[in-house]
Structures are given as C-alpha cells and as structure tokens.
C-alpha cells in the first residue's frame, strides 16, 4: 500500500501512536492513533472524499479543520461526519456518501447525550495563542477557566507552525510555533483552575444566559455553560479564490496543507504551486520544501511580495520563483489537479491574454487571506464592522478588547487578522481587564504596560501598519462604546 507519511523531517519528530486499521469503502486502511480519518486516508493515497450535491464534481477537503464541509462521510453508519476532525480509531467503517446521504443507521441501544451544566468564571472559546495565553493568566490568578476548542488537540493553528516565531522572547520569539503550543498546554495542564475541553463545539448563546456546546466523546456531553466573562478567540478561516475549476481535488487552503504535513506528517502532494505571497504563502512554501514537496512557484497578484522580506528570501534562495503581478486563471485535470495556469494581470488586476504560464503540479495551495470566524459573536448580538483590509466582519471593541456586549471580550485573529504575537497580547489584555473587574488592582498596571507596548511600540513597525490602521478603525473609546450599547 502507498504511504505518503513523512518518515524523516528536518524539524518535526513525528511520534506516531498505535497502529490501527479501519475500512474505507470496504478496503482496509492502516493508520496511527492521533491522526484524523482524513489524514489516514490521505496518507494511503486517497484524494477525493466527496462529490457535489448534484454528484457532478469531485470534492477534496479544503480547510482540514472542520469548517469547509467538503469531506462529509459516513462513519460507522453516521452520515455527514467531518472526517478531517474525527480521530481515527480501530475498526471504524468509513464510507463516502452519495451526494444526498441516507439517514443514519443507529443501533438499538443508543446512549443519549448527558447534559451537564458548567459554571465557570471565564469561558474561552478557542485554544489558539490568544485563548491559551488568556487562560494561563486567568488560571494563574485562581479564576475558574474553561477553554473550549473544536479540535481533538489544543493549540489552534500554532500546532502546525514549524518556523521560529518573531517578536520578543516575552512572547515566545525564537520558539517554533508547535513548541509554543506544547509549552502553553503543559503549563495549563498543571493548573487545576483551567480545563481545556477538546472536541467541544460552542454552537450558540441562549438569552436565558448560557452557551450551548456539544462535547463529542464517549459518551458525548451537552454542555450548558454559564460564565461571568467570555473571551471569544475563535480565530479565522481561509478564504477561497475564484478561478476555473477552483474546486478540483488538489486545491486546498495553505493551512489545510500545513495541517496534513505538519500536524499529521502526511505529504500533501509532490509538485505544488502556491497562490498568494503573504506570510502564510511564503511560510507554507518553505514548509513544503522541508516536507520534500517540489514548489514550482508562488503567484502574487500585486506588484510587490505581500509578506516579510526575510520569509521571501528563505524560499528564493532555494530556487522558488515569485511571480508578482500574476494570478491563477485555471486548474486542469481529470479527477485531481494535473496542471495550473497563471497569467499576468493588468492594472485592474484582471488577467492579460497571452501571458499564461503553465505548471504541471498536483497541488495548488491558496494563501489568499483569512477571514475572522465572527458567527458566534454576531449571534450574540455584538456590533460588527466590515473591514476588508482586516479580513471581513470584525467586532467593535474597546482598547481593552471588550465587545459591545459587556463582559464579552475578543482576542486574536477574530479581532482582525494579525500575527501570533498580537494574539498573545490581546489575550493578555482581555485577561487583565477581567482580573481588574474581579478586584485584582495590580492587573491594571500590567495591562497598561502591555497596551503601551502594543500600540506605541510593536504596532509602530511599518510592516504591520496596515493591520494597525485596520485595528484602529474597530477600536472605540469607552464612552463611544457606552453610547453604542445604548
């Protein structure tokens, strides 16, 4: 059987769990505990996981983190299972489902979900840099904290970042992303005040005063969470791009590829083209090289490279061209990408005829920006503003990261796309504001020092000017927020 697992990697030691086996459409597939079903299938060479509802187009997963819904499959008789976030287990029966699935097959003895009411001081939604940092501080002061994350491991997008982080050593500068996650999680595991609840989907807020969450497990729990304070740090999702055959298997988000190769150690393809030269695109190109994938180039629609020069230099010196002023116009292939065509763009950013370049690739990664996951805050009624330069709909907040709903805070990419350092800092600011309200007088001083560093130093860097300007547009004064709250 083919195995696309990465055996040796220059940065990551893949510690694979126990070998398990399951069936996929009747075929036996071997995988390792700790992998998602999808990662296991990908490693075995499967690339198509579903079809369009009309059954006419093939679908591969795009996001690999449970959002895009392109990998819905039948697992042990249950349809519409997101196999990218379903851990692989011994003996599973996994099947592709027809465009419109049959109803679930359930056994006679169904274990109903138990409902559990949880009272905590702070509910944190999201276990990425912002959520974990806030939890560390709040837990350290003895507040009872519940961190809820969709995924079966905490760390958010940190777990798939193999590069050393920039910034200051206070905020883990110089440490690789996945190592930061390990460190934070290990610190938190020693704090009895903090509970990290994985596979926990906070699906909504009820006006009766609690959040509903489904915690998937054996048995599953239905959590009704009451919290004095809430920090929503639910991150962002990858954007797609409009070009011909943009749904062909082999086209995925850059983060999707990172999940496969850096979290699960599975090679996402052999020959890649990256679209978008922001930091994500540049970094993923470098990571592809590390995973042994040939990178044919990066297309960037603007005239300049979008990300930081140092990231660009890292891949340029390994021979990866960056085609500025180019965009992808189409992908070609029968049941997966075989060729990608890019074209120069004119001043209007529209493709210019006769300038096409073709690449024989089996992987096209879209690194064309992120959009904040605003839906929970929006459902709660928080005021939002549309800011295309910050990724989409962004919640309004005070400089203390409080939204238009009192005691509900926001931090990280949901507050406007930026770097991990600012996610840590925003988590801290929200945490210290909560501590201030809980009567910890010293919190104010700490918070003001951090705020000063954030606005008057870190965000003064010219390379983050765009995100600073965007964040200013959604940051309102306390008085203004009072007025908006009405």
């Amino acid at each position, binding site marked *: 059987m083919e195995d696309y697992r990465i055996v*040796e*990697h*220059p*940065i990551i030691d893949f510690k694979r769990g126990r070998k398990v086996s399951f069936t996929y459409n009747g075929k036996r597939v071997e995988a390792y505990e700790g992998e998602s079903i999808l990662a296991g299938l990908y490693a075995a060479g499967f690339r198509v996981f579903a079809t369009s509802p009309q059954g006419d187009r093939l679908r591969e997963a795009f996001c690999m983190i449970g959002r895009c819904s392109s990998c819905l499959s039948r697992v042990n008789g249950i349809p519409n299972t997101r196999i990218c976030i379903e851990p692989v287990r011994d003996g599973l029966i996994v099947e592709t489902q027809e465009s419109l699935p049959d109803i679930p097959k359930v056994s006679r003895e169904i274990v109903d979900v138990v409902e559990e009411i949880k009272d905590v001081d702070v509910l944190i939604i999201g276990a990425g840099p912002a959520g974990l940092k806030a939890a560390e501080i709040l837990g350290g002061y003895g507040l009872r904290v519940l961190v809820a994350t969709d995924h079966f491991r905490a760390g958010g997008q940190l777990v798939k970042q193999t*590069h*050393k*982080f*920039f*910034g*200051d*050593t206070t905020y883990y*500068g*110089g440490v*690789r992303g996945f190592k930061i996650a390990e460190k934070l999680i290990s610190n938190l595991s020693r704090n009895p005040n903090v509970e990290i609840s994985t596979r926990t989907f906070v699906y909504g807020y009820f006006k009766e005063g609690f959040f509903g969450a489904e915690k998937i497990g054996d048995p599953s729990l239905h959590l009704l969470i009451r919290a004095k304070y809430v920090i929503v740090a639910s991150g962002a999702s990858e954007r797609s791009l409009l070009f011909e055959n943009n749904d062909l298997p082999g086209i995925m988000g850059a983060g999707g590829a990172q999940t496969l190769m850096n979290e699960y150690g599975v090679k996402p393809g052999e020959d890649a083209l990256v679209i978008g030269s922001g930091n994500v695109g540049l970094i993923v190109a470098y990571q592809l*090289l*590390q995973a*042994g994938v040939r990178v044919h180039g990066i297309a960037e629609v603007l*005239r*300049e*490279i979008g990300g*930081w*020069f*140092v*990231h*660009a*230099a*890292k*891949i*340029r*010196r*390994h*021979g*990866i061209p*960056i085609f*500025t002023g180019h965009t992808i116009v189409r992908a070609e292939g029968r049941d997966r990408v075989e060729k990608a065509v890019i074209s120069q763009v004119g001043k209007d950013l529209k493709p210019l005829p006769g300038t096409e370049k073709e690449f024989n690739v089996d992987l096209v990664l879209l690194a064309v920006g992120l959009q904040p996951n605003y839906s929970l805050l929006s459902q709660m009624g928080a005021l939002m503003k549309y800011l295309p330069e910050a990724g989409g709909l962004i919640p309004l907040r005070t400089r203390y990261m409080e939204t238009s709903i009192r005691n509900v805070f926001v931090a990280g990419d949901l507050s406007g796309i930026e770097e991990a*350092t600012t996610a840590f800092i925003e988590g801290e600011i929200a945490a210290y504001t909560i501590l201030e309200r809980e009567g910890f007088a010293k919190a104010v001083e700490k918070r003001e020092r951090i705020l000063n560093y954030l606005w008057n*130093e*870190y*965000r*003064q*860097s*010219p*390379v*983050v000017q765009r995100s600073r300007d965007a964040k200013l547009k959604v940051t309102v004064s306390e008085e203004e927020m009072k007025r908006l709250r009405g």
Partner: protein
Amino acid sequence: MGFKETGVLTLEDMMRAGLMPSEERLRKGPVALLECPEQIPCNICVSACPFKAISMDKIYDLPRLDENKCVGCGVCVAKCPGLAIFVVDVSKGDKAYITLPYEFLPKPSKGAKVKLLNREGKIVGEGVIVKAWEYEKTWVVTVEVEKNLWFDVRAIRIEGR
C-alpha cells in the same frame, strides 16, 4: 526592481539600510551580515548575541551591529527566526567561509560536498562543509567557497544519500 519585488537583496540594499560591515572589518575575520532590511517587529538577535554586539532601541528598529564586538560566532545565525543572518569570513587566503542556517535534509556533516546556491537559488558552484552544528533543529553550517562568491552564496543543497 527592489527586494520587495524580487525577494533578493543586493549589496546596495544592504549599504542603504546600513547593514553592511565596513570593508576593514570584513578583512579582519568572520563577521555577521544581518540581512534584515525591513523594520519587522522582532528583536531575537539582540538577546541571542552572547557578545551584545547587536542592538536596537525599539522592537521595530533595524538591527545595528557593533562590528567591533562581533566575533562571527554564528549564534545569531541559529536563532534568527527569519534565517536572515549569515557570517562571512573573507580573511583567509583565496577562499571565503560562509556560515548559514540550514533546515533541510539530509543532515549536514563536516567534509560533505554541497551545491552552492545564490539568493535566487541558482547553483553558483560547489563547496565543502567545514563546520556544522545544530541548535533546536536549525543547523549552522560553514562552507568553504571561492572568495568572489562571498556575497552570493546564501544556501546549500546537500545531495541525497
């Protein structure tokens, strides 16, 4: 076209940003080239240097090298998150010695022959690894190259085993 279009730094870019050590210092022995021309908010090199040779006031300043304090030890090469620091030594005969970060396979070892790559990834020659050490999965590799390639060679490719 500038480095924001090409992803490639020129000697002029380095001079303009004030990142180039003096010729006199270059002639003396190994010295760090901080190839970091944008004011990114990062100061890891400052705390990395055991000799306090790198400084900045604000986190977004360009790094300043005190060329008299720098001994070319290469610790900053290992620690710079941007893999943007190189040590060059043009003080020894007709060869130049370039110390660069390396995060690929196969692992480097002393004496290994390597292909030498310039800033655009073009092979500009062959060289030999004279020294290699590792810090948290970043290898710091010193290669011996023709002297005239001292500003060109910025990466190596070690052929498969």
